[in-house]
């Protein structure tokens, strides 16, 4: 008796003829990819667009120089009345200003639920869609820390902001095996009468600091 695996692969081959790695590779190379792959805007315009899209999601956006990051963090946390912030390993010391910063030590789900705020950096920003890409890496941490707390303060160098999804995907090519989360604004649902409601299970509030 054949296993389910053998049986399904047999059915697939019977359905359309067997393929080999070589024939597949040859036909793959012929796939049309004439969609837009490069930026059309200047970098300044890209940053403006990114900011505009983030604001559409009700995120606050701050642009600061590398030297002002600590002061900006202090200011943002004060305005949000946040005193205790969860952070991953690998965040620069001089960004950790204005609150108590607690490094993630494999906290349990319930322990994570005790945090209202998290601060991380990110891998890439996508202007066209207002998307920020997080990966499991130093400064960004494991996925759960940016999910459970209700507030996320995200710091991103301006050089990491690209215009299009395609450019971002190509940058991510190098680290595509890492757990990766694209987030575009706060969690949301439109399941009831198509009314967009901000914040269901992921963070409801997001602020972004763009660093020159």
């Amino acid at each position, binding site marked *: 008796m054949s296993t389910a695996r053998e049986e399904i692969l047999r059915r697939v081959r019977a359905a359309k003829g067997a393929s080999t*790695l070589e024939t597949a590779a040859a036909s793959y190379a012929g796939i049309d990819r004439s969609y837009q792959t490069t930026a059309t805007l200047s970098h300044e315009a890209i940053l403006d667009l990114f900011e505009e899209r983030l604001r559409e999601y009700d995120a606050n956006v701050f642009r600061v120089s590398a030297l002002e990051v600590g002061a900006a963090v202090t200011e943002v946390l004060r305005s949000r009345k946040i005193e205790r912030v969860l952070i991953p390993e690998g965040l620069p010391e001089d960004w950790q200003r204005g609150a108590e910063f607690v490094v993630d030590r494999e906290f349990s789900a319930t322990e994570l639920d005790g945090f209202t705020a998290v601060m991380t950096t990110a891998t890439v920003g996508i202007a066209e869609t207002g998307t920020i890409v997080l990966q499991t890496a130093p400064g960004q941490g494991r996925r759960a820390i940016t999910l459970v707390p209700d507030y996320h303060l995200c710091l991103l160098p301006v050089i990491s902001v690209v215009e299009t999804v395609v450019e971002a995907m190509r940058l991510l090519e190098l680290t595509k095996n890492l757990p990766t989360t694209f987030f575009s604004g706060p969690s949301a649902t439109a399941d009831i009468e198509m009314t967009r409601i901000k914040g269901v299970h992921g*963070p409801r509030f997001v602020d972004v600091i763009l660093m020159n």
Partner: protein
Amino acid sequence: MSRVPLDPRTAPTFQQAARALLGDAQLRKNVRHATDVIQTKRRKLVEEKQDWQALRESGRQIRAHVLENLDVYLEEFERNFTKAGGVIHWARDAAEAQKIVVGLVKEIGTTEVIKIKSMTTEEIQLNNALEAAGVHAYETDLAELIIQLGEDQPSHIVVPALHKNRAQVREIFRRTMNLPDLGDKPADLADAARRFLREKFLRVTTAVSGANFLVAETGGVCIVESEGNGRMCLTMPETLISVVGVEKVVPRWQDLEPLLQMLPRSATGERMNPYNSMWCGVHPGDGPQRMHIVLLDNGRTEVLADREGRQTLQCIRCGACQNACPVYRQTGGHAYGSVYAGPIGAILTPQLMHLEHSQSLPYASSLCGACYEVCPVKINIPEVLIHLRHKVVEQNGWYAPESLAMKAVAQVFRSERRFRAAQRLGRLAELPLVKSEKRSFAIVGQKQEASDGWIGWLPGLLGGWTSTRDLQAMPQETFRDWWEKRGKQ
């Protein structure tokens, strides 16, 4: 509570079910509102995308290429996912998939699982199988939760509860969550769901999901969602079990470039959905440390074997064809007797479930072509519908004139340009055939003056089935013309 699932084997014919549902004014209003909202947003975001047609063509070619080489990519995915610490299971049919998932859950020894919305697990009726084994599955997507608590059925593949309005949702939540004072603002209702589910996310250690895409070269899985319930399910538990149709694989990471751009624009009219998650097997210190994928056939290889039906498997489940379909917009999803409703359901269900169980579905369409126009991977749904109608005729007895007529129409639908031309011509050619008395099966929302737009009989050609099923004529104006005019009113 186990719901009676939508099952094409026991469902009434589309025409019977639709006739009953057409009497439900509230349902029709809810469906029309929801599909109007999504379509308006979708159109705006598709129009701003200068390279939309290039994205569609690329998406179509990627998906078609996968199907041509499915064995290669399934084996590659299996290799890489296994290397990354995951376990692959293969299921020939729904029963086998149920058995695998129930077995895994039993082995863990838990009596509860949390679930991410998945049409594939609806297709195999997994919740009922778990229930029978003493395991309760909590649906965590807001819409799926509404459906589960209301003992209802999904009616749309992206927004499964769009047939319920806020007052109806409030009633369900009040009753089942014991919240007598619950308000009816959507925000109140979402907040109730957030609180109801939070405790489960923190406590339940096993999750069940589907997947949007599998990436062969990395052994990667991709799930797109809005609420964060997906992220909760795929990062917090110790074990994640995903049930995925064999056709969902794509060769490489770069193939997500067009697909991730088109899916949110088509599905919910967003530039990007709030969350996309991608990961490759087990990652130490991050997320579930036990990961299983059940690769499901359940009729898909039979669809693959049918040259003309094969393109159905290109589908990325965006639901755009449902929102655009004048028939779906009138009847809602339940009339289709399957978890896959609308145009995609009309072609997918009869093929997955063997034609005899759902012979009426290929007729649940006016062939207006709106579905083909919006489909991000260019599935020529009208062409497949004609092909399936042909097969129905074949099954129910075959004689030459019918088959000839079918072939002629099928020819017409082979290219988009030809199809448009045919739509225009068809309206003229059919004029003498259109029934002018009372229509017996009216489901199209267009105002119909001179005639009702239904063909009651076709001399000699299609008599076999038009005598029992009225065939709708080509609309007097194309769907696009009608839609645009309507928008201006």
